């Protein structure tokens, strides 16, 4: 019955979920059942690519939750994503075991040639999947909690918050670049072999990961829907629109923000954890502030405060990226840049918003007429 409430009045979401389900069924079939020769065969390359997009989509949903509904433009989500990724990467590293180039039973290769004698303390436990998975959620969550606790309590808002989260991401990136940190420095973690005993290079595993991403996206989406359709969700929007008023109504604004921010960070962590085994590498580049800004744009393109819009945005922009970098490598930065400008100027509510506008033109001054311009 919760599901009913969550999906009611969310035609976009329903459609999105429906398509997601179809893709999740069809693509694996076309990949595994259909022979490679047939034109209907979907290459593993495509499967992995789609899987990657889905993790991005989940990340975008996480961003939309805090930006669209709470008005927090977080530039820290690349960091949360990256941390989740590193947690999973560390697990995959440990799985390599003695199959590394130096054949060291425990230490990953990069530690061997940097003459590390034994495993640093923070690497222990990551040979267990459940532990790594837990960390992939808890570490980003914890960081978000500490940062949020400080920031929201002292009422750092809007622009300042964005810039602080950006600084946070930047500092983390620099830290991970340092080889002394014990995370493989600039090279990061790579050359993964297998996961839970499944060979990462086999088609079946890749399809499995793809399905896992699809499932995670679906669940993440529903969870966010559950929040935004709850009273808490309405409080969030209230905070976005009139923070002071909400406070005078007796809501602990800082706690609400903290809770949602942390949850969103955890979602990002999950996305990261699913992303790494599919792309086969995690390195500090993922934590770059620029990535954070880019993924905010995915949400803007799709249409913020709609959740399903975030999914559309993430997939469209990244598909565009894959396509353009192949087709016209020279031009694609122009395209991306132009997209940023055009969307912010002419589509403040993104693709999903276009639908809304059409509707309001059809029924002027309708029930919820005035365009909500989500302010930061």
């Amino acid at each position, binding site marked *: 019955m919760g599901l009913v409430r969550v999906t009611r009045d969310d035609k976009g979401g329903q459609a999105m979920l429906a398509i997601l389900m179809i893709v999740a069924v069809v693509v694996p079939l076309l990949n595994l059942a259909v022979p490679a020769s047939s034109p209907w065969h979907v290459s593993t390359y495509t499967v992995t690519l789609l899987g990657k997009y889905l993790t991005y989509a989940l990340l975008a949903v996480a961003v939309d939750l805090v930006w669209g509904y709470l008005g927090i433009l977080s530039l820290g989500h690349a960091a949360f994503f990256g941390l989740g990724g590193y947690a999973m990467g560390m697990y995959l590293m440990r799985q390599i075991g003695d199959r590394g*180039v130096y054949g060291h039973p425990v230490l990953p290769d990069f530690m061997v040639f940097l003459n590390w004698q034994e495993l640093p303390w923070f690497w222990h436990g990551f040979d267990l999947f459940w532990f790594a998975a837990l960390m992939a959620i808890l570490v980003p969550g914890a960081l978000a909690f500490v940062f949020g606790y400080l920031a929201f309590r002292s009422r750092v808002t809007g622009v300042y918050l964005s810039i602080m989260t950006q600084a946070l991401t930047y500092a983390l990136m620099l830290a991970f670049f340092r080889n002394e940190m014990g995370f493989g420095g600039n090279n990061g973690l790579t050359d993964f072999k297998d996961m839970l005993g499944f060979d990462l290079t086999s088609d079946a595993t890749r399809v499995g990961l793809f399905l896992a991403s699809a499932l995670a996206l679906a669940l993440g989406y529903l969870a966010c829907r559950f929040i935004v359709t709850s009273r808490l969700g309405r409080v969030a929007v209230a905070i976005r629109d009139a923070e002071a008023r909400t406070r005078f109504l007796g809501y602990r604004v800082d706690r609400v923000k903290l809770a949602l921010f942390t949850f969103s960070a955890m979602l990002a962590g999950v996305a990261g954890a699913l992303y790494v085994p599919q792309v086969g590498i995690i390195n500090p580049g993922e934590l770059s502030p620029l990535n954070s800004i880019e993924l905010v744009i995915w949400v803007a393109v799709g249409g913020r405060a709609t959740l399903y*819009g975030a999914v559309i945005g993430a997939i469209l922009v990244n598909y565009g990226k894959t396509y353009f970098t192949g087709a016209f490598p020279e031009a694609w930065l122009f395209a991306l840049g132009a997209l940023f400008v055009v969307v912010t100027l002419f589509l403040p509510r993104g693709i999903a918003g276009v639908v809304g506008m059409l509707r309001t033109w059809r029924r002027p001054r309708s029930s919820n007429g005035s365009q909500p311009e989500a302010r930061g």
Partner: protein
Amino acid sequence: MSRRDPIKPILLCAGLALGVTSGLVAHAEDETIKVGVLHSLSGTMAISETTLKDTVLMLVEEQNKKGGLLGKQLEAVVVDPASDWPLFAEKARELLTKDKVAAVFGCWTSVSRKSVLPVFEELNGLLFYPVQYEGEESSKNVFYTGAAPNQQAIPAVDYLRDELGVERWVLAGTDYVYPRTTNKILEAYLKQNGVAEEDIMIDYTPFGHSDWQSIVARIKRFGSEGKKTAVVSTINGDANVPFYKELGNQGISADEIPVVAFSVGEEELSGIDTKPLVGHLAAWNYFMSVDDPANAAFIETWHGFTKDDKRVTNDPMEAHKIGFDLWVQAVEKAGTTDTDAVEAAIIGLETPNLTGGTAKMLPNHHITKPVLIGEIQGDGQFAVVWQTDAEVPGDAWSDYLEGSKDLIADWTPPIKCGNFNTKTQTCLGSQTP
């Protein structure tokens, strides 16, 4: 809420799903042999890598003028990994599965190579990697046509010690795997040659480090303590300009404290005002200034191809040239572009260097190279001041590192292993696909 709402997203997603699948499921025609080019054309690495893309295009064009390969024309497939390491892996996969390229020429940074390595091993493709690197790797599917540390770093140090009587060493590098490894090798090497701990100073800086004041001041102090001092620089491209400018400004001239760089070539110098740098050194396996008919011809073709006779040539370009020649020979020898056949055929093949001598593909997938030391001149070129009398064979596993001194790579039977432990006579890890 109206019913219209979902339609657009549905169309979008459906179209998208189709677009992705259909767009990416393509079929390679067989009239041409495809050659993948995997170099960043945007992002931070575009600075260095665009040139290499052009080089490969030129080589392909030249080969086609000669009538192609196995009676087929070559076709270059260019993609842009945009200096984004995961994207490298994705693009490699695209080239191998979607475009079905026979071989890929690409990558610059170690991280990009590391990122694509699993892909090439999984899909059994061929990668020719043209940049000097830290070694400590030998994959069945990769051919390392750039210098291994023993083909660049160690000869350079020998030169400084023997020719310039250097006794104190500053090992300055950007904080990533190539400098780390190279410096570890050099440190071990120097200590073996009786250099005292306190005569070695090691310093790492982040990428694109731009404020060198304190470090240069430290080097200056370190160098002013009586013994002849030199800097061995593994500083990465972008950080070099401010570094050399600071050296110049703090009045450290090449004959007081010479700097020998491993990552500064003609291409990088073209972005620097070289007057303050005159006399500083670089160690490479190729210099544009070497006057050798082969080199002159290469430069001429290059200028012709780029329609710009200002364009410089550099070491990685030669590496690509050598790699390409060897690949062409191997394909002709094997009579097919099949990876395993080519991989088996290419070992032992030879092709002339642009600086004289010949490059031979060794069983460890590295090649033999002459080592040249050049001094930076005012015109952005190098004057060769020293060179090894014979080619040095590339060594995948350094003899000066704890982990790897017992390792060798040999892809010929019976060993057929990239990291074979000579002590235990076992092939470590699981390199076999």
